[in-house]
């Protein structure tokens, strides 16, 4: 029992570290497309975690990613921190619902959580800056969630296939 707990802790830490690294690398080296469209590559790790461990662990990894990622970039408790926090919370909620309630396959989960992420961010921006005009961006973000969600979904699918074959969890 104790050994399993340690094993789980180590894997969660590794996954969190990977998510943080991907998050920082993406925000540093890949500029955002028009309308603030981004790939959200760190979502790959969230998908892998939810498939390998479960919902609670995914929540931990996602929260670690936002809090520590922003801490490392020196943006913690700034406006961008709250925006990304609300995005991650909504994305996690959507992921939990689509996993537990709808039992969707991984590609759908990926697309829906990408959608939740951008919608959460837009909602937070609307709340913080009183900009109800940001609503106009939502349709474009919904459409863009399809290709970016497919990209992260396929990546997570491939990674999961290899991980499940070669690593004992």
């Amino acid at each position, binding site marked *: 029992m104790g050994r399993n707990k340690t094993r789980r802790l180590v894997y969660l830490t590794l996954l969190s570290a990977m998510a943080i690294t991907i998050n920082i690398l993406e925000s540093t080296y890949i500029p955002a497309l028009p309308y603030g469209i981004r790939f959200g590559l760190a979502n790959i790790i969230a998908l892998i975690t939810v498939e390998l461990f479960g919902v609670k662990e995914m929540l931990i990894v996602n929260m670690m990613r936002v809090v520590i990622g922003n801490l490392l970039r020196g943006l913690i408790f700034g406006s961008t921190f709250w925006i990304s926090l609300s995005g991650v919370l909504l994305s996690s909620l959507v992921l939990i619902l689509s996993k537990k309630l709808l039992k969707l396959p991984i*590609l759908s989960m990926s697309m829906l959580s990408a959608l939740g992420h951008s919608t959460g961010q837009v909602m937070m921006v609307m709340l913080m800056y009183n900009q109800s005009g940001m609503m106009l961006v939502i349709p474009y973000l*919904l459409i863009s969630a399809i290709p970016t969600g497919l990209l992260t979904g396929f990546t997570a699918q491939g990674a999961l296939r290899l991980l499940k074959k070669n690593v004992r969890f």
Partner: protein
Amino acid sequence: MMKKKDLFVILAICALAGILFGGMKLIESFNTKEELGKVIYNNQILFTFDVNKNETYEFKGDYGTMHLEVQDGSFRVYDVECPNQICVGMGWLHKDDIFASIGIVCIPNQIIVVYEPEE
């Protein structure tokens, strides 16, 4: 490995985006109110004009007749009976232009053509 459910989800997202887009366009089309510019003569409003409607107007001031032309949200005066022609020299003013709320002023005619956006 795409499954059938994935296709359904893609279609659902597309449909949702389409509905939202259509709804926003619909709301926008209801919300386009008339944007009225004013022609002021001796501190009184002579008439108002819609800056989004392409039309020309003719009116009289103290000195003589003036013509106002509105096109694609911009307006200008032309063919003015006045030796100075300063108001004609102002050229086209777009409704989003800061000068549109200051307006075209003709002193000899006592005329101001102005568009003030509502706050």
